[in-house]
């Protein structure tokens, strides 16, 4: 922050912070800490996955054949692309280019929606076959007594991830409204930055989920 800033340039600084820099650093640290909690939250599911896979290695290779690698692969590319557009949205916000930032946020939401639509087709296809989570599981195509547990883990992991994608869509939509109103500039783009951090984590979790669930041989 330069000292010659007009008073309005500091209007975003909340009263309990000394300056804009302290506010930005705090927000960023807070978001990183929140991401740590997210990693541990999903970490519990990853542990459940590891335990059940260690006990039933054959189940995982069998059951994974029911997952559509092509759809999962497309979704992986879509999410990686959305991370790029999100990063660009932050960059344009830093460069004071609200218009391009707005469109990049829009592209991110579009990619997230594509992801959810593909996920929807994957889920409905499985429901059609009787692959439901838990006791509702009726599929007979996998010859293993614990096949339903694999899909319970699958639905828990992808379902919670999907909820995070939906939350991301909501947050980015809110950023678009704020961007349209000219709330962000090179001096103040904290919400764009920290939402970006969140979105990258959502992306990263999927990058772990995809090989662990779909690509088992």
């Amino acid at each position: 922050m330069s000292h010659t800033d007009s008073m309005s340039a500091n209007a975003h600084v909340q009263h309990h912070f000394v300056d804009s820099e302290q506010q930005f650093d705090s927000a960023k640290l807070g978001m990183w800490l929140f991401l740590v909690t997210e990693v541990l939250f999903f970490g519990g599911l990853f542990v459940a996955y590891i335990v059940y896979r260690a006990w039933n290695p054959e189940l995982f290779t069998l059951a994974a054949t029911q997952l559509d690698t092509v759809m999962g692969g497309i979704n992986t590319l879509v999410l990686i692309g959305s991370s790029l557009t999100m990063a660009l949205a932050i960059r344009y916000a830093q460069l004071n280019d609200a218009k391009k930032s707005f469109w990049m946020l829009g592209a991110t939401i579009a990619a997230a929606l594509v992801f959810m639509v593909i996920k929807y087709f994957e889920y409905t296809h499985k429901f059609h076959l009787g692959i439901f989570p838990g006791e509702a599981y009726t599929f007979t195509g996998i010859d293993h007594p614990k096949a339903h547990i694999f899909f319970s883990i699958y639905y828990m992991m992808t379902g919670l991830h999907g909820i995070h994608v939906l939350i991301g869509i909501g947050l980015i939509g809110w950023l678009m409204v704020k961007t349209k109103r000219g709330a962000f500039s090179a001096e103040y783009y904290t919400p764009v930055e920290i939402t970006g951090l969140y979105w990258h984590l959502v992306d990263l979790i999927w990058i772990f989920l995809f090989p662990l669930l779909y690509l088992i041989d």
Partner: protein
Amino acid sequence: MTNTTKPVAIREFPVEEFPETHYLNATKGLKSWMLTLDHKRIGLMYLASVIFFFFVGGLLALALRLELWEPAQNFMDAETYNRVFTLHGAVMIFLFIIPSIPAALGNIFLPVMLGAKDVAFPRLNLASFYIYLGGAMFTLYSMAHGGIDTGWTFYTPYSTNSGSAVISMTFGVFIMGFSSILTGVNFITTVHKMRAPGQTWGKLPLFVWSLYATGVIQVLATPVLAITLLLLIMERTLGIGIFDPALGGDPVLFQHFFWFYSHPAVYIMIVPGFGIISELISTFSRKVIFGYWAVALSSLAIAFIGFLVWGHHMFTSGQSELSTVVFSFLTFFVGLPTGIKIMNWVATMYRGSIWLATPMLYAIEFLFLFTIGGLTGIMLGALSVDIHLHDTYYVVAHFHYVMMGGTVFAFLGGLHYWWPKFTGKMYNETLAKIASVILFIGFNMTFLPQFVMGSQGMPRRYFGYLEQFQTLHQYSTVGSWILGVGFLLVAYYLIVSLVKGAKAPSNPWGGRSLEWMTSSPMPAHNFEHVPVVIHGPYDHHQPIAEFRMGIDAPHHDTTHA
């Protein structure tokens, strides 16, 4: 950076005594409280809530003790008894003790001790309070709808098919987890980013260090509880089969998940208490704390080693021999940093000029009770002994010596220590001392017999018992009444203090940390200047004026909404 640095003058800022306006009356009306972003008001609302739930949990405990007056049924049936002890545990742990020190006292004092105007994220702070209330509502709802009889540990497979309100209860705890996480995130960020000029890590009050370590545990452990409870809820609603052996799942996996959170969680409950004791012992001994870094870093050591000992709850659950040995060793190991603290506190008191005011009385009682609790914990960590004592009253007594004798006594010490600061009123010192002694006697009378019973084989959570235990149970029940009388007395003189207590000076105990360098009660923004820290928080040998240094607050162009 194109800053042209203007020279700033550091000068002493005398404290205004008995201020007309302060944070309690700066704004008025219900809305100014419900929607407040002031950490002190949020802390007060937390304080009122945790005291209320302590009262609820305490009544449940009195009911349990009364039922145990006789070996057979006394006034409630076995099913009710199971629900009452589950609720007692769940209310005391999730609604009282976890938020008690950090979210109530910590919220009020962390920013003040850092010389900051507020926590880093005031809105999240308010949100965490309402999330906590929301979770509490679910708990009350499950109480009204049949209660829950699984014990506060919710072990599978019983919790997957018990007919009681498991879902609403665990969902309530799940929600309260978010509140705890937000508090942790907020505190860690605040300690990192909001310290006053000159306040290096080596000049942080030890209460702040303890809240920091607690924040680390909250952030790392609570999400695992969240996913565990979510899986349990899914187990009950969809039958996902991960924990339920009838569906091919593994109930011991639930225990691993649960204790991965719940062992560190006992440190969420006790570490802030350690912080309070450090403040009390230094202030009332008029001495620099002995081994500042040892006390500060042992909190962090506890936070990290505490994550590696969860298996000591499962010595009898069919764990492999190798893991029980490793977990037993690590459990002994986590006793070390705690022992370091006790030694340093005692060394601080050595040759100090001890002022036995009420808070210090609580601190000394804490030293006795917590040491007993801690050493019996080492006993339980020993494999062969634990096989004998597992699931007996010995465990119940150990847990209460640590949690009640430890955390509750530290909480009471902190409450009395800071009461003049955040209410602006003094309390009746004589009554406070009497109450403290009554509580000490009542506590020991309640829980000491339980060690004996437990070592003789009285199992915990049992509704009926062998006649040979009746005398000890009756001692324990009478002790619980003495405890009840003690707490009523505390409530009485604190209410009197609020209504017509003498006005409190800004520094009644001669403390040296920043909260004593502002008015009682504090102004709405804690300080009218920017405090500058020169000395450590326990440097009682330095002139007090040098603790009141600061620079003029920069003119702020924003209104605070």
